[in-house]
């Protein structure tokens, strides 16, 4: 598949935004500026960027507790995102959702989700809306390797297959369900083989190769748009940080330093940088320019969040019902 140069540059930029955002969050969290929980996406950027590059604003996604990357790739604005992490009134959810619940239905973001496997049935329902009311639109569901053992995975895959819904199930296989390795939680290596049980295509790709993710996702999305039904796309990747900020030494209780370092060598961003240099798509200077712009954008979002007020206490009673 020939990927247009402009799209490749955009993939790069999206991954840089996610990385820069997450690195700042890591620092802000360590310094106590961000309350609650933060599950960082560093190392997995190629999945969100590669999949969302083929989505239109009117397409839907459901996300996970590790959702910052997905919503950035789907077009979320950094200012209300950062403000939400701070619990400020200007956040996407008026500060009432936090890191795990960022949503913007107008952008097709049906919410990050704090329940592992919680987003799958919701994506199926969005797919049903697409089929009945908006032919050509699709719903993408992100979830992890551990969620593929949840009943909702199996129920949702079956339901989408039976009703031939335009849903793309994107499994981010990062090798761990919190501290439990994939080998400990399932006997298969490739989760994509589970697609066969539901009569849909299952594809496994290197989730750190953004071009491979892009290509596989584009194909699955096109098929869904054309009424060809759902696909299970497994992207093998790795999270560099612990399960959450505060997981001691990036998960040293359950994985080795060597393993983390090995995966860091497979960084999806430096990998694309090498490709961009080799193919003369972008110069080092141009890439640095993107980093500089993005870091300023992230810094601006921090300033926006810090200057924003907390919600008034009366807000606790608002939005229980529409």
């Amino acid at each position, binding site marked *: 598949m020939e990927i247009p140069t402009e799209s490749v540059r955009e993939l790069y930029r999206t991954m840089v935004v996610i990385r820069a955002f997450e690195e700042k969050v890591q620092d802000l969290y360590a310094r106590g500026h961000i309350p609650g929980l933060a599950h960082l996406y560093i190392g997995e950027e190629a999945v969100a960027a590669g999949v969302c590059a083929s989505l239109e604003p009117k397409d839907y996604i459901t996300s996970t507790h590790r959702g910052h990357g997905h919503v950035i790739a789907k077009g979320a604005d950094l200012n209300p995102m950062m403000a939400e992490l701070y619990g400020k009134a200007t956040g996407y959810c008026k500060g009432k959702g936090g890191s795990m619940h960022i949503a913007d239905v*107008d952008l097709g973001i049906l919410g990050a989700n704090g329940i592992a496997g919680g987003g799958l049935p919701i994506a199926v329902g969005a797919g049903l809306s697409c089929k009945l*009311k908006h032919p050509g639109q699709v719903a993408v569901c992100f979830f992890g390797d551990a969620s593929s053992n949840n009943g909702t995975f199996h129920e949702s895959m079956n339901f989408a297959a039976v009703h031939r819904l335009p849903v793309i199930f994107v499994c981010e296989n990062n090798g761990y369900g919190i501290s439990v390795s994939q080998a400990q939680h399932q006997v298969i290596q490739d989760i994509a083989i589970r697609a066969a049980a539901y009569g849909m295509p299952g594809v496994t790709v290197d989730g750190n190769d953004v071009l491979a993710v892009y290509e596989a996702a584009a194909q699955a999305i096109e098929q869904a748009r054309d009424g060809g039904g759902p696909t299970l796309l497994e992207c093998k990747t790795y999270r560099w940080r612990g399960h959450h900020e505060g997981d001691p030494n990036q998960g040293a209780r359950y994985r080795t330093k060597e393993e983390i370092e090995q995966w860091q060598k497979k960084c999806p961003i430096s990998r694309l940088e090498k490709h961009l240099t080799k193919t003369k798509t972008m110069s080092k200077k141009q890439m640095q320019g993107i980093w500089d712009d993005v870091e300023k954008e992230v810094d601006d979002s921090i300033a926006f969040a810090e200057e924003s007020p907390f919600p008034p206490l009366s807000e606790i009673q608002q939005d229980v019902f529409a």
Partner: protein
Amino acid sequence: MSRVITYAQAINEALDYCMEQDDRVILMGEDIGKYGGIFQVTAGLLDKFGSERVIDTPISEAAFVGGAVGAAMTGLRPVVEVMFIDFITVAMDMVVNQMAKMHYMFGGRAKVPMVLRVNIGAGRGTAAQHSQSFHAIFQHIPGIKIVMPSTPHDAKGMMIEAIQDDNPVLFVEHKKIYIDKGEVPEEAYTVPFGQAKVARPGKDLTLVATLNMVAKSLAVAEEMAAQGVDIEVIDLRSLCPLDRDGVLDSVRKTGALVTADEGCKTGNLGAELAALVTEYAVEHLRAPIVRVAGPDTPVPFSPPLEQAFIPSEEDVKKAVSRVMEYL
């Protein structure tokens, strides 16, 4: 024009009307198509509206209840039949963490206009996993409207209201009253939520009842009127929003409260009403509050045991008599 139809037919008419009026309304559930629903509530709707809008689902409650949440967030107005309230437990995450929370935790950015139809109740020999009445559990989850109409008239009006509401609504039916008949206008109408109905005015004692316990309470009230006890029977109709003022005003007038609901006694919705009255109207109470409820046991199968489980008119009478000793 009113005519007499069953409770099941009344809900069917409401669904039919809403589906005709609004093509965003779809039905999902197990055996709701060709079979017409286990209690025939959706009979005929597949033929009229087709399989894209009347969806027979796999036996897969998390997928279709959660699917309804996603469909509702993206512009449809699904009405989901959960065959028995007992089965909702396998979709509890979708109900409690997803459906009920979306609007609030997204700061008002998402709406979830869906109706979850469930039925409660023992009395059909369906034993411990098809007969429960644990609807009160959902009172504890903010974000879900809960209604329980006791008559065909209210069933039709409250279903239309539920479908037109922009919030998730748990619509609680009782499996023993599906074939009960009552007067129902042919035209469409709504019955607002949060308004208890005075089914029988009285001055001596307030008897708040739900679903099948309403008819039993009315029968007891008539019988005891002959003995000079004037009971006010309130059909609660709506658990959330709860008509606090309706209950409190009645108790302030009578000074006594009995509640009647088939759910097991501990944590029964009568407990919430008792707390409400003691918190806001204790100075008006002349007697202890008594709850008529199912016992704290699973529903047994053996017919005599099952009958003993179900709160009876006799149980209501005993509760009223106990309260009357203080008056």
